[in-house]
């Protein structure tokens, strides 16, 4: 019997449809995955089921819950979702009231459903793997994973029939992500709960769900059992998504020269905690006595959980930050970070993670791309323009786009532009900070192909910062694993991932979601 029945659902904003003509049926006991990229309408669909759409949304079509259409009355709808639907959202940072202890927030959910008592709070906390003492904490005193557990405990407070999890793990790091996914699966099994799991991650859906719907641009692409859809996708779009989950090896012939390009020597970066008032606080060692060397033509990957110091290390290498002690040597120039002379900065560049924040919205693409050329004062006007054209064409875009503004480009295009900007000074070393993690799955492969081609074409050396082990395995010649400011393991990706030695590397490997069955 179907618990949720969506018929011909259309949601639009100001006349523009965001979801159109969607029909889905979710049965009691299903674990139903909804997959789609940004703008696919997957989150809106979830909000429509719970009656939480923004006020300016225009909705048509019907949604039935347990046989009855959703109540129109706001209070009745609120009670229905409180008692029978539990929800977990994407952002654990902002989804909890910052001024209220988490125990009180869980208790509130219990009271709204006529239950009572501290013992129930403790029971819920234990069910999601937290302890009774966590009830007295404020949200900012918990980690992202712990907050997401609190959210799950709150969703379970009313013993709901249906749980809707909207990208519950995409803001978490790899290891926590796996633990939260396992927790959701375990709870659904134990409580015989129906699950709607919304995600952009094929492998997470495959690991958790038994049925799946693929959404694109507000329309249903295809749906069916996970096995059928993922092993024999009927639609080209689904095929592309499935293909994108398999990383293709991208290193070509061995191209590593026998020459050291960058040498990092006992580098340490300490951050004093407390700013002006630094009484009795220990400095935080974001990077702690790190040494490494990079050969010309190599692709080196730095992996590790968030906060392990990999980004701080990268910022020092490109000269955005300075080391507290230790030094670096780049092709004979000794530096500590910020003191890298402008003439040498042209030989080093950085590609940022977020393609939306890395361009000044008020400058044209040409102006932004031309900015690093200040480092090469000898260029005349024609050479300057030629550099811009070369750079933008090398990343597969057209020279006419130089006069446009950043908001006219998609995320994937912006990341190509960011790469073009990094290449405009013709550097030898490019540092890539999570180069594809902010992009939609279907364009990640294209950007990685581009990076591999550019490396071959211009003989570039890459340092890739990432938490994505599959991407690293496909791109890197050598991998360094970082934890708490130190390098804890090193090796070639194939060997390292096949037989991890360090506890962290093992945990990272275990947290990897299984490949899709093919």
């Amino acid at each position, binding site marked *: 019997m179907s618990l949720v029945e969506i018929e011909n659902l259309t949601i639009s*904003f100001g006349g523009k449809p*965001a979801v159109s003509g969607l029909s889905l049926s979710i049965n009691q006991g299903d674990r139903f995955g909804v997959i*789609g*990229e*940004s*703008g*696919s*309408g*997957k*989150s*809106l669909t979830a*909000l429509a089921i719970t009656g939480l759409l*923004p*006020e*300016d*949304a225009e909705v048509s079509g019907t949604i039935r819950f347990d046989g009855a259409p959703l109540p129109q009355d706001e209070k009745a709808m609120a009670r229905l979702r409180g008692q029978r639907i539990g929800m977990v959202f*994407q952002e654990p940072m902002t989804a909890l009231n910052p001024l209220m202890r988490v125990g009180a927030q869980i208790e509130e959910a219990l009271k709204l459903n006529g239950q009572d008592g501290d013992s129930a709070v403790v029971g819920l906390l234990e069910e999601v793997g937290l302890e009774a003492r966590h009830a007295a904490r404020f949200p900012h005193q918990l980690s992202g994973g712990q907050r997401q557990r609190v959210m799950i405990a709150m969703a379970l407070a009313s013993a709901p029939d249906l749980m809707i999890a*909207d*990208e519950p793990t995409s803001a978490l790091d790899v290891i926590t992500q796996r633990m939260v996914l396992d927790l959701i699966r375990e709870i659904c099994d134990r409580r015989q709960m129906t699950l709607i799991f*919304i995600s*952009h991650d094929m492998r997470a859906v495959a690991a958790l769900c038994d049925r799946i719907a693929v959404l694109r641009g507000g329309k249903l692409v295809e749906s069916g059992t996970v096995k059928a859809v993922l092993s024999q996708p009927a639609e080209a779009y689904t095929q592309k998504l499935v293909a994108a989950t398999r990383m293709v090896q991208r290193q070509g012939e061995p191209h590593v020269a026998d020459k050291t390009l960058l040498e990092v020597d006992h580098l340490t970066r300490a951050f004093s905690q407390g700013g*002006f008032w630094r009484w009795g606080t220990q400095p935080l060692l974001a990077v702690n006595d790190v040494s490494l060397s990079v050969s010309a033509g190599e692709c080196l990957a730095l992996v590790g959980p968030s906060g392990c110091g990999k980004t701080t290390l990268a910022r020092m290498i*490109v*000269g*955005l930050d300075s080391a507290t002690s230790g030094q670096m040597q780049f092709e004979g120039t000794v530096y500590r970070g910020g003191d890298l002379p*402008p003439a040498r*900065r042209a030989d080093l*560049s*950085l590609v*940022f*993670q*977020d393609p939306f*924040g*890395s*361009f*000044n*919205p*008020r*400058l044209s693409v040409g102006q*932004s791309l031309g*900015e*690093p*050329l*200040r*480092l090469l004062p000898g260029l005349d006007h024609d050479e300057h323009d030629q550099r811009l054209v070369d750079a933008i064409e090398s990343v597969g875009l057209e020279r006419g786009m130089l006069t446009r503004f950043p908001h006219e480009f998609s995320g994937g295009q912006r990341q190509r532009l960011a790469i073009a*900007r990094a290449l405009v000074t013709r550097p030898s070393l490019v540092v890539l900070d999570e180069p594809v993690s902010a992009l939609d799955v279907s364009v990640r492969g294209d950007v990685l192909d581009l990076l591999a081609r550019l490396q071959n074409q211009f003989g570039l050396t890459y340092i890739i910062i990432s938490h994505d082990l599959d991407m690293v395995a496909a791109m890197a010649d050598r991998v360094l694993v970082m934890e708490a400011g130190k390098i804890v393991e090193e090796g070639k990706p194939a060997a390292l991932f096949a037989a991890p030695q360090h506890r962290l590397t093992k945990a990272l490997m275990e947290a990897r979601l299984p490949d899709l069955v093919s």
Partner: protein
Amino acid sequence: MNWRSVFKHPGLTIGLAATALFAMLALLSLVWTPYPIADISIARRFATPGAEHWLGTDQLGRDMLSLIMSGTLTSFTVGAIAVLIGAGIGVPLGLAAAIYGGPVEWVVLRFSDLAFAFPAVVIAILIATLMGPGASNAVIAIGIFNVPVFAQVARGGALAISTLDFVAAARLAGLRKPMIALLHLLPNIASLIIVQGTIQLSLGILAEAGLSYIGLGTQPPATSLGLMLRDAQSLFLIHPWLSLAPGLAIVVIVIALNIAGDGLRDALDPRLRNRGLANVAG
């Protein structure tokens, strides 16, 4: 922002139009008023509004419309110069605090605490003690009062922008901090500053009225809307119109400016415009 987006916001259109109307009346008073404002004639005092004197005459027989036109010019001028002083000092201070951080930021923040501790009236009192009352007194007092407001707005906006990657990209491209502030931060906080400018302009006009009313601002023979209220004070119970007309002029000007400011904020800040969709991630 282009002109089409101005007309998408009716508040902005109305507010700007009304403000422009008053500003034009005020400017007109430089070259022409119905009667000279210094033209005193006891014979025609306390005239009621009519064909000859549209808004009547005051206790000295001066034409009220002429006085209001001229007074509006004083109010706008004082408010606008005070905004220029406030933004001219405050915005660079706020930007410096945001890009240099550390001791520079500490000094700017303490300075702004200090300036907040002196309400405009207190500054005006001190200046009046030093130099005697006058319109420039009001300009300086309100201007100083504006400085920390602009400093905080600029610092807050610049801090939010400076965490974005394009600022780091500019540093990688070898730009020095003042250049980054000028090229990357200032253009992106300009809309915030313009909106704050309209708010401070309307507050400045109110403050000028208050200071002139207690005798610390504009002095005769010049006139301002606040000074007209001061002159009418003793006659208020017998001839309320003399107070009502300039008071209403202040109210309408300030409402026009505030509506224009709200409209500007909606038009310039797309984050506020799209709030309805902000909840929806995918």
